[in-house]
């Protein structure tokens, strides 16, 4: 990683391409948040690569003025792995959707997380396939009516952050497309060395409008959003409520904000992270950095091993082809 910081403005990060999402799409808000965040990261445009799969969200790289690679459906993580291994100096962002990352691309998502490639993964979760006109996705709730499920979907959805946790992710966070905290979440993801998994609740106005309204709507936000901060108490509803551990049932419970049993957020606690990610009805939605426990990155380990294995050896091509048990043929070949 190049540690020099570079001075840029949000505008520097916008490409000359016309943005082609539906009017009102949450993707616009995420784009703005990212463009606004980049200057604060002190990174250079030429050292930044956005790699995406296919989907509405995956159009994202075209709108950034950095390097960008709009790949194929579900494979962004795999391609990004090659990019980063080939040039670890590059700051790699993976842009993906709930279909791209969790339907066709689920396996690569798991592997990039367990390997802990140093990159930021922004998963735009709109609980729908936007680009292909609104079929339900693996994150759609049971009963979702869509062109492919006219009578409602029956399969139980996967919880993206829980999947990331199960896959061995070392950084898991959540944000909301239009929420002011999104830049902070992005900054934390960038600061984390390793695969940073960020689920962004993104509203698809055309095919799944207001699917997150139950916790994003202004009037319920405070009651329904728990913004986690490392070392701080888990409080919400303007501090009037908090989370504590039910020692009997060994699970989380909601208590009054001033209850001394309110627990403090330790992002390294994986067991608690599992509980926070899937809180039942009546609980708020955990947002911000839910889990963070750094480990060596994949590319650093690969490069270290490449170096160690090469140490003391020289890339002698003639020597290489001449290896093994050899023999000389001295005499002239038959005169033919």
């Amino acid at each position, binding site marked *: 990683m190049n540690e020099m910081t570079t001075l840029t403005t949000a505008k520097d990060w916008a*490409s*000359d*391409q016309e943005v082609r999402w539906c009017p009102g799409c949450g993707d616009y808000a995420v784009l703005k948040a990212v463009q606004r965040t980049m200057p604060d990261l002190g990174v*250079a445009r*030429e*050292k930044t*690569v956005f*790699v995406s799969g*296919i989907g509405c969200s995956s159009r994202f*790289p*075209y709108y*950034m*003025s*950095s*390097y*960008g*690679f*709009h*790949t*194929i459906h579900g*494979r962004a993580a*795999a*391609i*990004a*792995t*090659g*990019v*980063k*291994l*080939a*040039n670890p*100096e*590059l700051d790699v962002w993976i842009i993906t959707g709930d279909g791209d990352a969790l339907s066709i691309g689920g*396996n*690569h998502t*798991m*592997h990039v997380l367990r390997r802990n490639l140093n990159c930021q993964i922004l998963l735009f979760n709109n609980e729908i396939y936007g680009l292909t006109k609104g079929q339900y996705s693996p994150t759609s709730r049971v009963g979702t009516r869509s062109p492919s499920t006219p009578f409602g979907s029956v399969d139980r959805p996967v919880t993206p952050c829980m999947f990331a946790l199960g896959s061995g992710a070392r950084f898991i966070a959540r944000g909301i497309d239009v929420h002011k905290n999104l830049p902070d979440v992005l900054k934390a993801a960038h600061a984390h060395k390793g695969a940073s998994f960020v689920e962004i609740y993104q509203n698809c106005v055309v095919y799944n409008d207001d699917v997150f309204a139950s916790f994003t709507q202004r009037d319920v936000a405070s009651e329904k959003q728990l913004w986690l901060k490392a070392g701080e108490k888990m409080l919400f509803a303007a501090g009037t409520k908090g989370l504590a551990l039910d020692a009997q049932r060994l699970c989380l419970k909601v208590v009054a904000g001033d209850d001394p049993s309110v627990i403090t957020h330790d992002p390294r606690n994986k067991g608690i992270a599992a509980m926070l990610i899937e809180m039942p009805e009546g609980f708020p939605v955990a947002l911000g950095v839910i889990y963070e426990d750094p480990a060596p990155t994949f590319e650093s380990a*690969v490069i270290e091993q*490449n170096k160690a*294995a*090469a140490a003391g*050896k020289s*890339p002698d*091509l*003639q020597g*290489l*082809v*001449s*290896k*093994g*048990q*050899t*023999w*000389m*043929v*001295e*005499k002239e*070949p*038959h005169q*033919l």
Partner: protein
Amino acid sequence: MATATHLLTEKEATSPGEAVVVRFAGDSGDGMQLTGGQFTLSTALAGNDLATFPDFPAEIRAPQGTTFGVSAFQINFGSTAVETAGDEPDVLIAMNPAALKVNAEALREGGLIIADEGEFTARNLAKAGYEQNPLEDGSLGRWQLVHFNISQLTLDAVKPFGLGNKEALRCKNMWTLGLALWMFDRDRQPIIDWLKQKFAKAPELAEANIAALNAGHAYGETVEMGAPFKQHHIAAAPAEPGLYRTVTGAEALALGLVAGCQLADLPMFFGSYPITPASPLLHHLARLKEFGITTFQAEDEIAAICAAIGASYAGQLGITSSSGPGVALKTEAIGLAIMTELPLVVVNSQRGGPSTGLPTKTEQSDLYQAVYGRNADAPVPVIAARSPADAFDCAIEACRIATRYMTPLMLLTDGYIANAAEPWRVPDMSNYQSFPVRYFSTPPAEGEGVMPYARNEELVRPWIKPGTPGLEHRIGGIEKAPGTGNIDYSPAVHQKMTDTRWMKVAGIAQSIPDQEVCVGRQGAKLAVVGWGSTFGPIHQAVRRALAKGQDVAHVHVRHIWPMPKNMGALLRSFDHVLVPEMNMGQFKTVLRDQFLIDAKSLTKVSGHPFRIAEIEAAIDATLRSGT
């Protein structure tokens, strides 16, 4: 000498030297591949030309004594050029009844069987499906038979080293190798050196194995056997002077890819997912990190190629390798490499199919997949190696084409080439022309845009590495405008880009050599046209035909797509074209489509290479019917 560059003249072809085919066969636990490998080395050191054919079961360790657990290693060596592992063994060494059962039929009439009678127990006979002991019931009358108790002789020989019975019996293969070395008048020292090195940490095992080796050798020398069992000396084969070694196809391929990247002045990124018979390439390259190689064992074939594409995008040479079923999974991503015009080498070590098929058997049946096997108009160059040694040069050629033309490329080899060994004259790398890659790094003039899809006179776009200031741009799999590369779906643009992709690949023909005739004359009555690992049997068959006075030529094609510029004219010069392939006639389709010549197929899909005699017979038949 079975090297890529050395082709026999007709004169040489008509003066046959002496050659012998030996097959070692035993249980998969008997170490036959090791025995074969060491015998190969000793053969090479004796200056014979040679070709080998390892044939092992699909199971890791099949149950002892069963026919499907038989592992065999065949070697053909001689005082003249050897191109195939031989049609019919002259000598079969059978370590147990199952090995005899499976392999006896292949032996030439009058050939020699050497059997370990110690293993011909009632139980083993039953497992192999013998009702009586064939060593005793006269059923092997067509062949010459000698048998002795190799198991017991080995146990006796290694007794001083205090091994358990099981471990002691593991030395049987060295006893057998000792006997074989005696039979062909070979030096034991290189094998002894190798054993010492191999068992450096367990000297008693080294000593026991050496004792077994010596005992086998001594047995040949001292015991008086019948007539068939005598010592042969095969004179050294004529060969260009120089330094030699043996290589398997997988080794040569690995070396060639390393050389190709060095000549291109590029770090290599090798992404692969294990699959038989492609895995050895990954294993070889994983040890060569000092050459700027990153190997990446991906979660599947799709991730393997995708990571390679990502690495090429970032400025390394992305290479991926698999076998047919794995390459099938890569086809969508190959389309992305075609659209983004990034260099990429896809190696396919073909095996028997369809589906899981016959993982350890050889076949050439992925040519359709290589040439045509993608959605949309998606041309990629295809080249094919014809022998283990040739794989070296093909790999270099693959790297050259992929980087010069910014294109994915398919490099075909097969299970036979991957595993077979042959002597190889170590190339002088200073004779190879380098083709260093130059990334594009000139930022556009003020007010002008980045042009990732500008093209040079060969229609090739620039390679711009992320990290280059001032050239930030976006690429992807959607159709795009010439020059800027911006998304563009308009009719004229799609037509133009499709034509351009097509012409760029077709234009590769300008930088490849004209197709040569290996042997025989242009304009002959019959051309036998091959590609890939059929080289050996075709070449020998055509040489024999020439010796018989038949007007036949051998044409062997490395560049399957695009083909050399002169290909059409050359093929039309022959009255008949016969295309032997280990598939149902795939290259024949390409030839007929491209040149509208009445190419006829000779097909074989049995998991085994062609026998020379099969091709000879087809030559005879074609000439008979064609005149």
